[in-house]
């Protein structure tokens, strides 16, 4: 899902960052947000809605819309589209509002 070559832009990807998504090992790059790295890995469902458990994905990419809120290192409602990836992060799908652990 990564763009290899682009006519206008060059992508200087930082060093590899390792994290987990629902226990599964994943790799992203330094300087990337959690949601971007997940998207690159083909993960499109980031959360489930409160009442009807509908899938929630990446939507606005600028921290406005709340569609990408996930549980990160035990903390719910993290806006993953604006939160940078860090080594060893534990990222989980959020169901509804999430609980503070």
């Amino acid at each position, binding site marked *: 899902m990564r*763009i290899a070559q682009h*006519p206008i832009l060059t*992508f200087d*990807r930082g060093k590899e960052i390792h994290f987990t998504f629902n226990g599964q090992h994943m790799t992203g790059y330094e300087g990337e947000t959690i949601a971007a790295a997940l998207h690159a890995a083909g993960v499109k469902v980031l959360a489930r809605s409160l009442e009807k458990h509908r899938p929630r*994905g990446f*939507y606005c*990419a*600028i921290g406005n819309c709340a569609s990408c809120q996930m549980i990160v290192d035990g903390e719910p409602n993290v806006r993953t589209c604006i939160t940078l990836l860090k080594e060893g992060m534990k990222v989980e799908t959020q169901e509804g509002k999430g609980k503070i652990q």
Partner: protein
Amino acid sequence: MREVELLVIGSGPAGLCAAISAASSGAKVLVLERNFKPGGQLIKQTHMFFGSESQYASHRGVDIADILLSKIKAYGDQIEIMLNATAVGFYEDNVVTVLRDEKEYFKIKARSILCATGAYEKSLAFPNNDLPGIYGAGAVQTLMNVYGIRPGDRVLMVGAGNIGVIVSYQLLQAGIQVVAVLDAAPRIGAYLVHASKLARMGVPILTSHTVKEAIGTDCLEAAVVCEVDGKFQPIPGTEKRYDVDVMCISVGLSPLNELLAMRGVEMKYVPQLSGYVPMRTESCETSIPGIFVAGDASGIEEASSAMAEGYLAGLCAAAGLGHVPTDFEQRKQTYLKQLEDLRSGPVGDRIRAGMKISQL
């Protein structure tokens, strides 16, 4: 509590130009930016900008961000940009509360405040519009042009305004197929040169069309579109299905200026400027002296106007603080003339009408 001379909220085209302009008059400026990178939407614009040399026409947005940031750097500690810092409150005593890195919460008091907070993308109501795979067009730009990540393989673009048409072209540049661009309006809203660029790549632009529904279980799998009549009502029997894994919603922007409303400046709903906007003087000053506005936060326009308005607002805000350069009047007239030029054509009709209504 930290005290600053001029606080600029937002580091997009308007905010950066405002900071440069105010600093060049001698003001000390703090710029707040909620993102971890400065530049606002400029950092994802790979196309060349319109306008004239004074608005860096013919340069790509992403490069304009670099040009403006290098100008800012030349002012040394006269301009500080604070990243990851979201202005969350704005109070009577000109105190702005800031949330930094999602954990530090503090106050900043400013003698003058310039709001350049930009805009947000509007959404569109249709069944299953919440499926993953449906994005704001700006989000897809961020994925592609900031992170170099493909949103998917086959895209339906909803909205044939400048953003919809430009993002479609950018999708093609990233090697992604765009099956069609639709718009409920009977005419293309984008600059027609942009539309022609797309048309000659074989992407059909379907005016008088809308999305009837999205189809998919966990992610978008297809979209059903249909024609609409002169009253924007769906015409039965005109449905068409596109198998797509991405749909971009690009149906316009709304000014993002809740901070100004919270502070109590006089606001007005101005449809020509795409939403609630602050009333302001020719100098971009709101109904409360010392509080200024520039760019999309004052009404949706092109980035070229946002830059010219930023320069004007920064100049006037600095003057209000006592930093009046000898060529103040001449500079002010230059920026006003640039804005007049940018707004004087047929695409500026709407803006000019809106400006009249929102003028103090």
